[in-house]
């Protein structure tokens, strides 16, 4: 049976792993490769690096830390951030990334997903999708809308329709982040993840909102997520990945033993 995956997310600025406080004021928490290795030993099933370096000037720096991660980590890792072209895919995969994520660039030019999948295969094309709920007058959620540019730009696209279109074009996996949940530590957007998992036939990684160990169980059992992204929970030392997995096993969530 296919296991549910626990996926640590590591923010990278220039060539350092950082954590953000209230989405700003990055503080360095270590070397991307060393941190990745540590989480691998703790039982991570996969890693996601979110490259928050704004400038393209640092392209060489980026390839260098990715190469270091590839040297030291023997589980799969994705790199997301700043990818715009098939050439970017090539460079990141060549540097050692197993998967490459695109977000805003895919909304602006959806064919990018197809072009990358045709050459490198769907399995390494990850769609980053940032979502916000739209409410009616009664305050009920009627649908979710896609946002780009780190959640700053409203696109008008319906989340489910965009996810289905992206999967048809060539995305092999979706990381769905609920912007209104991100950093709130009150749980994933279980309703949205469940909807996506039912409507889209590629794996869904739930992102945004995990604060307690129970939230992860909830997004797997109720949200039907294929993988759960964890960040601050483990970066701040509240939980280890081993503790998360042991807890999930007691709740009969099918996770990989270490």
């Amino acid at each position, binding site marked *: *049976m*296919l*296991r549910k*995956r626990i996926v640590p997310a590591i923010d990278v600025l220039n060539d350092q792993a950082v954590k953000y406080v209230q989405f700003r004021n990055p503080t360095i928490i270590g070397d991307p490769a060393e941190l990745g290795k540590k989480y*691998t030993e703790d039982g991570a*099933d*996969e890693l996601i690096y979110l490259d928050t370096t704004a400038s393209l000037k640092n392209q060489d720096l980026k390839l260098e830390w990715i190469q270091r991660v*590839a*040297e030291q980590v*023997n*589980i*799969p890792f994705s790199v997301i951030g700043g990818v715009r072209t098939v050439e970017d895919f090539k460079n990141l*995969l*060549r540097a*050692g*990334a*197993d998967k490459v994520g695109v977000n805003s660039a895919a909304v602006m030019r959806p064919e990018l997903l197809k072009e990358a999948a*045709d*050459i*490198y*295969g*769907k*399995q*390494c094309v990850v769609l980053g999708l940032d979502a916000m709920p739209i409410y009616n007058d009664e305050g009920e959620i009627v649908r979710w809308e896609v946002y780009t540019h780190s959640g700053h730009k409203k696109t008008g696209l319906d989340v489910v329709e965009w996810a289905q279109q992206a999967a048809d074009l060539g995305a*092999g*996996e979706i990381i769905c982040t609920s912007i209104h949940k991100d950093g709130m530590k009150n749980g994933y957007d279980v309703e949205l993840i469940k909807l996506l998992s039912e409507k889209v*036939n*590629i*794996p869904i990684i739930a992102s945004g909102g995990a604060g307690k160990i129970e939230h992860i169980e909830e997004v797997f059992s109720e949200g039907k997520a*294929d*993988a759960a992204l964890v960040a601050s929970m483990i970066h701040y030392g509240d939980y280890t990945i081993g503790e998360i997995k042991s807890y999930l096993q007691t709740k009969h969530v099918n996770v*990989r*033993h270490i």
Partner: protein
Amino acid sequence: MIGIIDYGAGNLHSVLKATKQLGYETKLITSDSDHTDDITKIILPGVGNAKVAMDVLNSTGLSDYLKERVSKGIPLLGICLGMQLLLETSEEGNVPCLGLLKGAVPEFTDESEKIPHMGWNQVKDIQSHFLFENIPDETDFYFVHSYFAKPELQEEILGETNYGINFASVIGNSQVMGVQFHPEKSGKYGIQLLDNFCKQGGK
């Protein structure tokens, strides 16, 4: 020396890194012109599309090189797409493959399961084989694929994995073999499997 086939599309650096870290001498083989006779084992890694990969292998002469080396008794390990290419045909682009093992490569069609099959899943040993040495039965390995191998000969199904159906996740014989998962991305037991292949007959 271990030769690793580089056909452009795949991410082979992790395979290269893993074999180097295990202490084996390795060499990338990019076309028929730069192979050397001191290569005693070959790994055909893989990520990508079967049609694209076969086009490159054929146009560079690597297809003929692989067939010739195998006919001379050199052991060959295919990984993921590299494993699928060992068979006769793939439905991915409906392309003829290397034909070093009998069988075909169909696509997953079970609509109740998501495609690609992506993540950690268990391999059940079907036959004893040196690839499985020091690896417990039902060990988890990392898979990413939408097509799967269907060997014609039952005795060439070495290990199986369940994803809606039971499919052959380790195939082959004592010389030509393949694994559907990525040993280089499957933690310590994946590295053990690579070592099991590389150490046969000494370094």
